[in-house]
């Protein structure tokens, strides 16, 4: 669809008002996104001295280290964990979002509220709660001991499974909400039209519902995948030191190793990865989906 032409006040510079209204956002982006990113980029090209201070310069040394198999493996593992998290969120979240959007208005409001209730508590508190659940003397093991003593105790905490559980738990609402929004916009007549044209319940989904809710899925996947790759709190608390992911490595470079330039290089590499994946996603988007 062509955007409607914006009515302009004759005499003022075209779009002056628009720029004025956008100014706070632009300033915020410039100050807290563009500037830090440039700082990070500059830092990544420098070196550290023996006291951990950044020596500004121009060297690709840090990027060579990023390509070290140790770090590449951690990168890959992080991507794998994030992909698994995203996949599970999609598997659990899509049907939930679909049902919420198709529920009666009053039920819908209640269900949406329930999805957002976890945000009322601090994220860290909720992650500690998971530790209490998964721990050897925790709730889950107490339940297992009671039901099936032979299996107890299950070593759950500090495993990849615990990390993925925590990640899925944390990011599920970020998938549900955008998918909900796109299902809610979906015109019910389109589903009826598909039925009318011979699509049974199982064929309507891939033929009509899925392609038309793709924008919501794309938004949800991005909102889950991107932060999940770089997450360090959940992996720290639920994975211990046994499952280091790229977020933990970066955090360590800045806080423990005091090697800011290398940490910055890792960060820039991650940023580059996201940019590339976004461009690929954009190129893959079907023609019809761009239109109304």
């Amino acid at each position, binding site marked *: *669809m062509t955007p409607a032409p914006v009515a302009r006040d004759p005499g003022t510079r075209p779009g002056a008002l628009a720029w004025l209204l956008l100014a706070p956002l632009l300033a915020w982006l410039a100050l807290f996104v563009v500037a830090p990113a440039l700082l990070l980029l500059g830092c990544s090209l420098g070196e550290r001295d023996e006291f951990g201070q950044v020596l500004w310069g121009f060297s690709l040394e840090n990027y060579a280290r990023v390509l070290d198999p140790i770090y590449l493996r951690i990168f890959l593992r992080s991507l794998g964990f994030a992909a698994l998290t995203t996949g599970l969120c999609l598997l659990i979240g899509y049907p939930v979002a679909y049902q919420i959007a198709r529920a009666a208005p009053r039920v819908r409001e209640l269900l949406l509220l329930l999805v957002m209730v976890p945000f009322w508590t601090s994220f860290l508190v909720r992650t500690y709660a998971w530790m209490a659940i998964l721990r050897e003397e925790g709730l889950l093991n107490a339940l297992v001991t009671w039901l099936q003593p032979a299996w107890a105790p299950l070593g759950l905490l500090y495993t990849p499974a615990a990390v993925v559980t925590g990640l899925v738990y944390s990011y599920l609402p970020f998938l549900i909400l955008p998918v909900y929004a796109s299902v809610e916009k979906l*015109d019910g*007549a*389109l589903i*009826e*039209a*598909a*039925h*009318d*044209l*011979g*699509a*049974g319940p199982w*064929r309507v989904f891939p*033929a*009509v519902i899925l*392609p*038309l809710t793709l924008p919501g899925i794309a938004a949800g996947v991005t909102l889950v995948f991107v932060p999940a790759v770089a997450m360090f709190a959940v992996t720290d608390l639920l994975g211990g030191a046994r499952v280091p992911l790229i977020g933990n490595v970066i955090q360590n470079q800045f806080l423990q190793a005091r090697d800011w330039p290398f940490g910055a290089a890792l960060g820039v590499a991650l940023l580059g990865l996201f940019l590339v994946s976004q461009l690929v996603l954009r190129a893959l988007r*079907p*023609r*019809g*989906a761009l*239109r*109304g």
Partner: protein
Amino acid sequence: MSASIELDGVGKRYGTVTAVCEVRLTIAAGEFLTLLGPSGCGKTTLLRMIAGFEAPTAGRILLGGEDITGVPPHRRPVNQVFQGYALFPHLSVRGNVAFGLRMRGVSPAELVRRVDEALALVSLEGLGERFPSELSGGQRQRVAVARAVVCRPQVLLLDEPFSALDAKLRQTMRAELQALQRRLGMTFVLVTHDQDEALALSDRIAVISAGALEQVGPPREIYHRPATAFVADFVGHANLVPAERIGGSAGRVAVRLAGGLEAGVPAECWPAGRKATRAVVRPEQVVLRPWRGDGRPAARARVTAVEFRGDREHLQVALQDGGGLTLTAVHPGGEGDRADFAVGAEVAIGIPADHLWFLPGG
């Protein structure tokens, strides 16, 4: 002609609310039938039950003699043109038209051939690669029609297919749709609240009010011989004039209308056994002359309002001794005699007896 659809006491209740009450209606194969009624009368619910989107709470629906009451919509050989068209925005015109064939597992070669055929049928060749958002309203409607007829349904259902179009385009699309129906020989069931559409397109009209059939018949019969006051008033404009029987002989009935007009009408027009009822007088049946003081068989009236409609004028005329009765009359919109029929002018009213119709139910 064989029966295409048979509605056998089909009804729909939502809790205590009755949306459709036990409709009995047989639609012949190849017939163009219109369900006509005001919004909320249940006509769309009836259509949705034929399509399979709603399950009737009473009765059966037969298609070609076969009971399809419990058959889900995707297994019914019935397709629909939706109100607002419901074209798939993520599919091209071809993709939309091919959808039904794909779901039926038609071979690729046949699919291409039949899609081409359907696009040609609605004159959309060359627009196959466009997306619905790139089409005009009329083109969208054609895609919706092509998408629905490509599967060769036994019945095509159309839910207010012209409501999204402007008046001029509506005329064109109406003519196209009628031509298409004649060419395909397919049974069409159209839902509309627009009486012009119903009169112009249908073989038969089923007038629905409050979930029940009021009258079913050819457009001319519906217009000239309405069964109820509702039908008379909903289809075209009607003056309902109180009438009483004052005598009769040899196949004729002498009738006196309110306002003092008397007429002899054929006995079959008068509901047998009734003393009084109401006459249906269409505005175009009211004959107007300037008042010259000449009395019968004309009644004296005064013009109270004039509505200019271009090719004609609609006049409101109040009868002098009609107990406050006001009639609507149509007058050709000529300029020559405007003063004779201006507001306040006295006119003589005549109602020729030959086309009078009397409501059977009073």
